[in-house]
């Protein structure tokens, strides 16, 4: 609804409360965190005001450089797999009848809302020696005895893909459900196989949607902090785990803040890129 801009206190009254809440409880925390990232750490207390770049300089050490590199590598790999599976999945889902679509959506939402803790726990059971898939393989006679497949890089990767998959589906869903079905029909009528239609028509048309889904899921996976601890080995700790560790166990809040600000800048840059892609999509 459009109209004259709001005048006076009375017409503004609706927005005052949400504005105050968001400014105090969302903008202020980020502002304080930015300030704290330049503060000086004090042993046995939290920190004292200062302006030093030491916290930022510490990224440059090989240890955190490696953690950052690993975080980006595994998040990119996991989100690439998520998109590669979720794209055809979502495409098929949107071609289903409405009741079937609704059932899938309920399941996807239920998995999406699962706590990362529960996902970590479930996969560590699934890949464990006592309660895992390997027991089924033993039972089928394919393996001699059950094995533990976690903690390992592959276990962490599986967990991240599972975590990111429902999110990917929901990011792709709007674009795919609005896709004109005549597009595929035209391609079929011109003699292309379903396989060709999918890869040469559907995928290129939705190139931007795929790219933005990849970036969104990448940022989402970058934020995983439980899975690396439960399914990975210590060398698989991501930046998110280090932020928590520095803040809670090492009580080095200024350094944690600096790491968080850095991670935020990376994420913001990627999200802005997604929005640019989104705008291109609207004005072809």
């Amino acid at each position, binding site marked *: 609804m459009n*109209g004259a*801009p*709001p005048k006076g206190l009375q017409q503004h009254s*609706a927005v005052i*409360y*949400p*504005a105050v*809440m*968001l400014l105090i409880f*969302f*903008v202020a925390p980020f502002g*304080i*965190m930015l300030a704290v990232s330049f503060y000086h750490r004090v042993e046995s207390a*939290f920190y004292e005001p200062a302006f030093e770049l030491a916290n930022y300089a510490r990224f440059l050490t090989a240890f955190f450089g490696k953690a950052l590199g690993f975080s980006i590598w595994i998040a990119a790999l996991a989100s690439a797999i998520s998109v590669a599976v979720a794209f055809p*999945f979502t495409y*098929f889902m949107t071609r289903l009848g*409405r009741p079937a679509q*609704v059932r899938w959506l*309920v*399941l996807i939402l*239920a998995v999406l*809302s*699962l*706590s*990362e*803790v*529960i*996902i970590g*726990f*479930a996969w*560590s*059971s*699934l890949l464990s020696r*006592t*309660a895992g898939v390997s*027991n089924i393989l033993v039972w089928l006679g394919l393996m001699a005895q059950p094995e533990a497949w976690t903690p390992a890089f592959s276990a962490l990767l599986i967990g991240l893909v*599972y975590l990111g*998959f429902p999110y990917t589906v*929901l990011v792709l869903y*709007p674009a795919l*459900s609005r896709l004109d079905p005549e597009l595929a029909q035209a391609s079929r009528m011109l003699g292309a196989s379903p396989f060709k239609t*999918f890869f040469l028509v559907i995928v290129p048309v939705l190139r931007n949607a795929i790219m933005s889904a990849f970036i*969104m899921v990448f*940022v989402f996976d*970058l*934020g995983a*902090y439980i899975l690396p601890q439960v399914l990975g080995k210590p060398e698989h700790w991501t930046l*998110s785990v280090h*932020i*928590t560790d520095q*803040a*809670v166990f090492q009580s080095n809040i200024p350094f944690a803040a600096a790491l*968080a600000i850095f*991670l*935020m800048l990376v994420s*913001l840059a990627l*999200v802005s890129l*997604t*929005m640019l892609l989104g*705008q291109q999509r609207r004005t072809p």
Partner: protein
Amino acid sequence: MNNIGRNIFMGAVLAVLLAPLVVLGGVSLNEPKQLLFPPEGFSLKWYVELITLPDWLNAVKNSLIIAITSAFLSVSIAFPLAYFLWRYRVFYARILFGLGLAPFMLPPVITALGFLIFWVDVGQLLNLQLYGSIIATIVSHAIFFVTLPLVTISLGLESIEAQVIEAASTMGGDDRTIFRTVVLPLVRPYLISGYAFAFVLSLNEYIVAYMVAGFTVETLPIKIFNSLRYGYTPVMASVAVVFVLVAILVFGLIARFGDLPKLMGAWSNKET
């Protein structure tokens, strides 16, 4: 792609999506206090322990209090903001709206650390023990999940046809009357689904609850994570099963009484 290939692919995805849930269900029914799958024996005692053992019951209570109140607070922030933006379309309302979407676009650990620092500092400033209090968790969750009701309610408002509002105003309704008699009844389902989304996600949330009050206010996800480190028990699996059932129930109800595909189609509009 042909139908057989499609069905095999969809079936495989379904199997992988369900596998962890099946294992959790099996583990939660174990007779011995071990995480075995397939389960040994059959027992519902871990579900009983969830609501009888004081420390688990306490976590259930904390989680419910936080989810119920923070989702309410989220909606109370989101609704007037969404209404104001819909009614006036001024740039500062857009900026606030963008702020409301932000927590969902950043890795949660960042927001969580921001809250931690905020509650420590404000607590020191006001000489109150805010860091580690349940109030801090509730308010932090309310802000963290404000995106969900904000998006669903805006969608609800957008779906009100302009003619309906015009008709109401030509017939002499002022803003307040139109709001009460037209807008509110039409957006009510979206208010409820926004609340439901925030509720379910708050129930499952770990990192913010942990950073803000993890050592004093134990929620169910925190309790599960602690049990993962110090002493496994099938109760963990029973919590997970209950959570899955709650999620399926809530989203099933939304689907039953609302338009889930539409809600999802717009849910990700936040990204464009």
